[in-house]
C-alpha cells in the first residue's frame, strides 16, 4: 500500500466514524418515531435524541459519593471503543488503513470491552441498582458470546478468513453464498445476538426507568450531564454499528471495495439506507413484543446458539 493509499484509507475510516457517530442519534430518533406512529402517538421527531444530546453535553456531570476513577473513565472507554469499531468495521469500504484491527474476533472483543467498562462503573457506584444492572448485563454478555463466535465461525468458513473485509468482499464476489443454509442460519443467530447486545426488546427495554426489570438503564442510573450524554451516544452508536455490521455481513451490496470518491459516496448512501430500513423494521417488530422475563432470556440465547452451531455444521456438510 503506498503512502497515498494509506492517507485515502485513513480518510475513509474517518468518514465511517463521522457517519456512524453523527448518524446514530438520528437512527434512534427514527426508530422511536416509527414506534410512536405505530402506537398511535405523534412522536417527538427524528431529531429529538440529537437535541437531548446537545442539552446533556452542556450540563454538569455528577459522581456519586465514594465512586472512583473507574466511574469517571467508563464513558470515555465506552466512547473510544465505539470510535475504534466505527473506524475498523467495513461499513463504507472494505479498504482499511492498517491490517489487524478488522478481524471479527477482535471487533467482538472490543465491543465487549466497552460493555465491561460500563458494568464496572455500575458496580463502582456502590448502589443496588448499579450492581443489579451490571450482574444482568454480564450474564447476557456471557451467554451471547458463544453464539457470536460460532456465527463468525460459520461466516468465515466460506472465505477461509475471519477478517471482516475478506468476508464482505467474498460475499460481493460470489453472492450466491449468501443464500447457503449456513449463511441464513448464521443470520438468524446473529439477529438474536444484536437484539441482546444492544439491549432491545425482548431482552431489555430501552425505555424503562427505575423498574426491577431493567438492565442497561440500571447500570447507567448514576450518570448525568456530559457523562450521560457520552453513554447515550455510545449506546446509540453501538446499535448503529451492530445493525451496520449485520446488514453488511448478510446484504453487502453497495460497500465500496476501492477508495474512489464516487464508490465511497455510494457506500455511505447504501449504508444509511440499509441501516435505516433495518432499524425501522426492528422498531416495528418491537411494537408487537413484550419483554421476556429475565430468566427466559437464556433460553432465547440457547436457541440462537443452536442456530449458530447448525450454521457451522451446515457449512461443512451441505457445502
Amino acid at each position, binding site marked *: 500500500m503506498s503512502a497515498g493509499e494509506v492517507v485515502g484509507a485513513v480518510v475513509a475510516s474517518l468518514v465511517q466514524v463521522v457517519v456512524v457517530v453523527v448518524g446514530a442519534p438520528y437512527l434512534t430518533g427514527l426508530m422511536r418515531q416509527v414506534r410512536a406512529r405505530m402506537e398511535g402517538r405523534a412522536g417527538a421527531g427524528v431529531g429529538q435524541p440529537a437535541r437531548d444530546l446537545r442539552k446533556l453535553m452542556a450540563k454538569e456531570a455528577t459522581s456519586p459519593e465514594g465512586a472512583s476513577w473507574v466511574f469517571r473513565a467508563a464513558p470515555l472507554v465506552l466512547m473510544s471503543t465505539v470510535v475504534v469499531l466505527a473506524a475498523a468495521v467495513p461499513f463504507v469500504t472494505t479498504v482499511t488503513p492498517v491490517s489487524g484491527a478488522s478481524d471479527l474476533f477482535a471487533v467482538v472483543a472490543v465491543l465487549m470491552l466497552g460493555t465491561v467498562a460500563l458494568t464496572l462503573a455500575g458496580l463502582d457506584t456502590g448502589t443496588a441498582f448499579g450492581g443489579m444492572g451490571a450482574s444482568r448485563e454480564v450474564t447476557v454478555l456471557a451467554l451471547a458470546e458463544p453464539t457470536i*463466535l460460532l456465527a463468525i465461525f460459520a461466516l468465515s468458513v466460506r472465505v477461509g478468513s475471519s477478517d471482516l473485509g475478506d468476508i464482505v468482499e467474498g460475499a460481493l464476489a460470489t453472492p450466491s453464498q449468501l443464500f447457503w443454509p449456513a449463511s441464513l442460519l448464521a443470520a438468524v443467530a446473529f439477529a438474536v445476538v444484536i437484539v441482546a447486545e444492544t439491549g432491545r426488546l425482548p431482552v431489555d427495554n430501552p425505555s424503562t426507568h427505575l423498574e426491577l426489570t431493567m438492565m442497561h438503564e440500571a447500570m447507567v442510573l448514576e450518570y448525568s450531564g456530559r457523562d450521560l450524554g457520552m453513554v447515550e451516544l455510545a449506546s446509540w452508536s453501538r446499535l448503529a454499528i451492530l445493525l451496520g455490521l449485520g446488514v453488511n455481513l448478510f446484504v453487502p451490496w453497495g460497500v465500496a471495495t476501492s477508495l474512489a470518491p464516487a464508490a465511497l459516496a455510494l457506500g455511505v448512501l447504501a449504508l444509511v439506507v440499509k441501516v435505516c430500513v433495518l432499524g425501522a423494521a426492528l422498531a416495528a417488530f418491537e411494537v408487537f413484543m413484550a419483554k421476556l422475563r429475565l430468566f427466559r432470556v437464556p433460553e432465547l440465547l440457547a436457541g440462537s446458539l443452536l442456530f449458530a452451531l447448525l450454521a457451522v455444521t451446515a457449512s461443512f456438510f451441505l457445502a
Partner: protein
Amino acid sequence: MIQTGLWLVALGALVGAAAVVVAPERRRHVVAGSVTALVGVGGVLAGLGGLGGSTWTAVAPGLLPLGEARLAVDALSGAFLLLIGAVAVAAGVYGIGYTAPGGRHAQDLPAAHDQHLPDAAAHHASPAASRTAQATVPLFVAAMLLVPAAASVTTFLVLWELMALTSLLLVLTEHRLRASVREAGLWYAGMTHAGLVAIMTAFALVAANVGGESFDAIRAGAADLSPTVRTVALVLVLLGFGSKAGMVPLHVWLPRAHPEAPSHVSALMSAAMVKLGVYGLIRVAFDLLGGAPRWWGLLVLALGCLSALYGVLQASVAVDLKRLLAYSTSENVGLMLIGLGAAAVFAADGNRVLAGVVMAAAVLHAFNHAAFKTVLFLGAGSVLRSTGLRDLDALGGLVRRMPVTTALVAVGTLGAAALPPGNGFVSEWVLLQGLIHSVGPGGSPVVAVSIPVAVGVVALTAGLGVATFVKAFGVGFLALPRSTAAAEATESPLPMRVGMGLAAGVCLALGLLPAVAARPLDRVLGVLPEVRSIDPLADSAVTLRLNGIAGSMSPLVIAVGLVLAGTAVVALVRRLSRGVPRRVAPAWGCGAIERDPRQEYTATSFAEPLTRVFDDVLRPEQDVDVTPLAESRYLIESVTFRQRVPDRLEARIYPPLLAAATAWGRWSRRLARGSVHTYLAYGFVGLLAALLLAGVTG
C-alpha cells in the same frame, strides 16, 4: 548462557537455602526473597539461552542411585525455564514484602468456619516467615526449574518428586492456623503422588521396551514400540500430568491447596508448577513418543473442554478470591489442553500447518496465563495481607485505599478476562484461528462436529471468564467497603508492589507486542516435528500474522486506536461542556438518605443469575433462617442467608473411590496377623511364584 543459568539455579538454591537458615530473623525475609529472585534469574538466563536456539547437554554419571543424572536444554525446555524463572523473580521480590513483619494475613481468617486451634493467637509472626518455609521456597523454585531440563527418566522423576515434596511443605506452612490447610495438604499429597505413580509406570513401561532410560534412547526407540505399550503410556501420562495441571476431574487439589498456601507460593504453584503438567504432556506425547494418535487428541480435546467449562463455571460463582483464581487456573489449563488435543487431531489428519498454530497457541497461552495469574495471586495476597480477608463478599473500596495494587490487578484482570489489550486475548485469538480454519471442504466429519463444539466451549468460557473477572475486580476492589477490615486497608510495602509491577509489565508487553513471541515460539515448534511443517507465526513488527492460513491481528493498533479515540473524545467533550465542573453528590437510593454498604451487590448476588442459569450443573446449597420476633411470628427479627456451591463433580467421583480404597485396605489387613510363620509362608509362596513366572516367560 544455559550453563551459567543452570549453575546459578542449582548453586543459588543450595547456598541460598543455607544462607536463609543461618540469617538472623530480622533479615531473613530479605535474604529469602533475594535468593528466590536470583534463582529465578538463573532460570530466565537458561531459558533465554534455550529459546535463542542453542542446545546443551550435561551428564553426571553415578550421581543418582539408579544411574546417571542427565540434563539437556532445547527450545521447548527453554520456554518453560523462562516461564518459571520469570514467575520466580516476581514472586521472590514480592515475598520480601509479603513475609516481612506486619500484616493481617497470619491471622485466622474470619470467613473460615474452621475449628480454632488454641495456639493460633499466640503466633504473631507469619508462618510464611519461618525458617523452614523461607528456606524451602528457593529449593522449590530450583526443583521446578530443573524439571524441564531433565533428560532421562530417573532424573526427571527425582526432580518431579522433589518439586512435589517442597511444594507440599509450602502448602502446609500455615497448618497451625487453620484446619483447612491440613486437609488441603492431604488432598494435594494424595493427588500428586497418584500422579507420580502414573507417570512412573508410564516411563518404566516405555523405558523397559526401548531398552534405555535417557530421553534420547526413548526418542530413538519410540517408533518400534508396540501399540499396546504406546496406548497405556499415553493414557497414564495424561492422568499423571493432568493431575498436576489441574485437569478436571483431577483438579480437586487445586481449589484447596492454592488458597491455603502463602500467596507468593500460590502464585508459584498456579502460574508455574501447573504448567509443568502441560510441559510433561507436550514432551512425552509429541516429542518422546513421536506424536499421538487421533483418539488421544480427541480425548485431550474433550477433557480440555470439560476443564475449561467446569473451571470457569466454578470460578464464576466462587466468593473466595483465591479459590476463584484456582478454578480459573483449571479453566486456562483446559484451554491449553484444547490446543494440545486439537494439535494431535490435526497432525493425525496430516494437517501440520494447523497443528503448529494450535500448539503455538497452547504454549503462548501458558505464558500469558503465567503472567496474569502471577499478578492476580500476588494481588490477592496483598489484599489478604492488608485486610486479612479472602472473602469477596466482605471486600470492596480498595481502589481508594490501595490504588497501586488496584491498578496492577486491573492489568492482570484485563488479561484474565481475555479482552484487548490484555494478553489472554492474544492466545485465545490464535487458538480460535487455528480451530476455525480446520473445518472446510475435504476435512473429516469428526473434525467438523467436534471442533465447532470446542469453539463454542472456548467462547462460552471467554464469556463466563469476563463475568468472573468483572465480579472479582468490581466487587473486590470498587464500590464501598463492605467490612471494617476492608475500610481500613493500607497499601502494600514497596517490594510487593515491585513484584506485582514486574508481572504486570510482562502482561502488558505480551498483550501489546505478541509478535516478539513469534520467533521463540517458532523455535519451540521446531523441537516438535510431528506438529510442524512451517513456522506457525510470522515475525512482523506490530501485527501478529499466522503463516499458512489467513489471519492477522494487531493488539497494538487496537490499543493505539483506543488511546487516540479517547484523546479525541476528551478534547471534544471539553469543548462542548464549556468547562462546567463535576460535582460529587449522594447516590440515588430511591428516596432513602442513609447509605449502607449492606445495600450493595455482593459477589454472591452478582453471580446469582449465573447460578440460576447453570443450576443443574452447580446445584448450590442454600440455607435461609428466618427468626421471628417473640411477640408474633408475622414480625421478622432477622433473616440469614447462606449459600455454598460445593464441587459436585468431586462429590460424585471421589467418595466412592476413597471408600473403595479404605475397604481394600481393611480387607488386606487380614493378611497381616502378626504371626511370623504366616509371613515366612508368604515369602516362600512369593519366591516360588516369581521363579515359576521367570521359568514360563524366560
